[in-house]
Structures are given as structure tokens and as C-alpha cells.
């Protein structure tokens, strides 16, 4: 198992970080930390380019983050036509940043750069998994 059912469209599946999907299925959005130098990674990675070490540990991206920027995408590319419009956002959390969509509960007029967010697992149709930002 890898990234076969991640996001709206899958482009590639195999990765050493496939545990991310297991955690996501269990309700957790996880990032990685190098055990040697302490660097934190999202997208999560099992190889630290500073230490050339693959000794990393997973940690949950829990707690509040803040919205750095957002855009309402009205024109989805191939494979995303049915999703549009959707709001993409960049969120900043303790030690990592994440690109994801904003929950559909939040209208564009209620969004403000700097607002508090949390990142939550999201079940999509047909057993697909993702994560999204919600109000925190």
C-alpha cells in the first residue's frame, strides 16, 4: 500500500513514507523529524539531506496553525473539474507548512490571512483519503 487513494487524483504511488497513509486512515496527519539533527519535514520524508540519515521519527501535526495565504480555484485542471471551485491554502504549524484545501464550511468571505487553523484528515468518496484545514 502506498499513495493509491490519496487526494483527488493519484500521479504516483510508491514511497517509503507510505506509513503516512496508515496514520491518516487512523485519523492523524503526521510529519517527520530527523532523530540526529531535529529538522522537521512536511511533506514528510524519511531521508534527512543535512545528516544523510534515514533515522527519522513521525510526529502528529496537532494544535493550532495559521493561514499564510489562500486562493479560490474556479478552474480545475483535468481530473479536478468536479471539485472546482475549491480553496487552496498554505498553513503554517509548529515546525512545518502544509498545502491543502480549506474545509467547504468556510466561505471565501470569512477567510483572513493569519486566521487560526487546524489540519484534519478527510475521507473522500470511494475510499480516498486526504486532509483539509478547518477552523481552530
Amino acid at each position, binding site marked *: 500500500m502506498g*499513495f493509491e487513494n*490519496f*487526494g*483527488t*487524483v*493519484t*500521479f*504516483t504511488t510508491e*514511497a517509503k513514507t507510505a506509513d503516512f497513509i496508515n496514520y491518516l486512515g487512523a485519523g492523524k496527519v503526521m510529519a517527520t523529524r530527523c532523530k540526529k539533527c531535529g529538522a522537521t519535514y*512536511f*511533506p514528510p520524508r524519511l531521508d534527512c539531506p543535512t545528516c544523510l540519515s534515514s533515522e527519522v521519527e513521525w510526529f502528529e501535526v496537532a494544535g493550532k496553525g495559521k493561514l*499564510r*495565504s*489562500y*486562493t*479560490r*480555484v*474556479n*478552474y*480545475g*485542471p*483535468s*481530473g*479536478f*473539474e468536479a*471539485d*472546482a471551485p*475549491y480553496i*487552496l491554502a*498554505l498553513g503554517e504549524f509548529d515546525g*512545518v*507548512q*502544509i*498545502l*491543502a*484545501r480549506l474545509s467547504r464550511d468556510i466561505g*471565501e468571505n470569512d477567510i483572513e*490571512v*493569519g486566521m487560526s487553523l487546524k489540519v484534519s484528515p478527510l475521507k473522500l468518496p470511494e475510499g480516498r483519503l*486526504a486532509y483539509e484545514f478547518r477552523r481552530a
Partner: protein
Amino acid sequence: MAEVAIVGAGQTAFSRQCGVNIRELSFEAFKEAVEGVDVAVKDIDASIVCSAPEYDKQRSPASLISEYLGLTPKPTFYVETVCSSSTTGLRVAWSMIRAGLHKIVAVIGFQKMSELSSRDAAERMGRGGDIIWESPFGLTMPAGYALYARAHMAKYGTTEEQLAKVRVKNSHYGATNPKATYRKELTLEDILNSEVITSPLKKFDCCANADGASCIIVARGDIARRMCAIPIWIIGLGAATDTMSMAGRESLTGLRCAQEAARQAYKMAGIRPKDIDVAEVHDCFTISEILAYEDLGFAKPGEGVKLLEEKQTYVDGRIPVNVDGGLLSKGHPIGATGGSQIRTIVRQLRRQATEAQVKAAKIGLVHNIGGIGQYGNVTILGR
């Protein structure tokens, strides 16, 4: 050390659908580049073909184009940094000449985007991001720049109307460029009333996909002097990168790759931003031109819009920018764009511009960005 100069620069008209194939498109740009240059095709001793992959069924287009231009058996290869491919090619050409490997090198950029539907083209561009972690959320190229636009607005109070003024300026100059896809002058209202593509960017805040080719002929200095009346010298080169993922970006109010490439290019040329007489910047979106003013040091961070509103980037201003209409008017055939920007500066420095000519321009700058700020090339040219 050998100096390196541009002796010829050409491009096709950029259009929504060119009606010819990539070899024919490239030939047209090549022909314009060698016109008026005292060079036989057999003397061009290497070629670099620059393009973004996955638009063509043709695999390995370098060989095809080399054959069609009559450049075999000289070496050729493909160079890619998406939208900045052809200025990366120029950098490689400079290096090969400086290293003494070659004397005259042709840098050919091309893209025939009309081979794909615009949705399919958007999907390809979306895969120009991180395909495991970000593309599956529906990230597109305009959406990436929209994140920068929104962040710039939040930090500096930049408005949608101010962004639209970039297009007002560029459409004004594009109207006089016979090579441009769009030659209609747009009003502020036209732009502000156009449909929202990815907020806050509207249709007219975005450049269009296009077909086109460009070609730059680069030569060792001593030969360049014999080949043409006014060699245009490559006096500064800078190149840098930023993360593929948006999640890796430290700043959303400027492109780090452009800032670093500019620093290198100014240092190599031994000049400062105020010494630039004319510039071509990568205005794939209106926000991109504002970021460029600030990343290149033409304005302080947050003050790019002021430079525009004071009309300092118009042809009679302190630092004219994109007076050929920019990508917003010309269209953006990915691999051809950097070469087209170089061509405009070459023509400005030779006082040959048929569009707005900047008076007595001696030093010009080209800012060419690949992807959503993943690659940045800054090239400084002098006469």
C-alpha cells in the same frame, strides 16, 4: 578569459495556434536570428534546445530540430527548467564558450502548447509541482502565484486594481508588438471585470498559453566582433532555485530564486539595480511583475506598485519594464519565452525596437522564472 556575446536573436510570432510543427516553428526563429549576422550555418558548432517536456508526442526533440536546422553532425542536447528553459540554455551556452569547447552556439527555445487542450495543459502545469503531496489537491500554476498575490496584498495592502495596472501598461505596449498574441489595449475596467480564474487573479491578470519559438546565437567575443555590427555582451548571469513544494517556501511576498539570481548577476556585472536602462521581467501573472520589481531591487519590498503607479516602468520612466508587452501580451510558449525576452533586450540595446524604444539604452536585464518560482535566471546584457 574569452568574452561572450549575443550576435543574433530571433523569434516567431507568438499565437494561440501556429498551424505548423515544432521543427518548422524553430526554423522560423532560427532564420530571424541569423539574418544580418555574418555566419554560415556550418560554423555553428553546437546547439541547445530548450523546452518543457510532455507537450509533444516527439521524444528527444533536440535531434529533430538539429536536423531540420542543418546543424548535424554538431552536438545538440535538451535543457529544461520549464518556463525559464531558454535562459538556462543561454547560461549553458556561455559556459561552453568560456570553457573553450565551442565558438558559436545556437540556443533554440520552442513550445507548441496548442497540441493540448487548455485543461490538459493546466494538468501538465499542475504536475510542475510536487506530484505526491501537492498536485493531488488540484494545485495549478495560477493558483501558486495567487498564493503569492494574496500574501502580498495581506502584508502590503496591494490591491486588485493595482495588479490590474500591470496589465494596463503591458497591453498598451503589446498593442504595438507584431509578434504578440494579444494586441488589444485593455482598460482597468476590462481587467477588473474579467472572470476570476483563481482569486484574486482574473483572466486578464494571467498570460495565455501560446505557440512559439525563439533563437539566440551566442559567440566568443573576438568572433562576435567580426560577425555583426553591434555585439550584445553577456555581462551578468545569475541562477537560483527554490523548493518544488509550496510547503517549503519561506517567503510568499517575493521569489527567493529571483532575489538570489539577481544578487549574483549584479555582482558579476559589477553594477547596481539603478544602472539598468531597460528590463524584461517574467510577468506570467500581474503579481509576478510587481514581485519582480521588488526582487530585482527596482523598488523596496512592498513598494513595487508605487513604481508602477508613478509610471516609472513606462518607456519614459526611470526603469522601463516589459515595453514589448511582456508575457501578458505576447503569450507564454514556455520554452521560447526566455529567448523572446533576450531578443527584446538585444533589439533595445541595438536601438532596433519597433515597439517602444528606450532612449540610449546601454544596459538591459532579463528576469526569467521557471514554474511557481522554482527556477530563477537573471541575465544582464550590455552594448
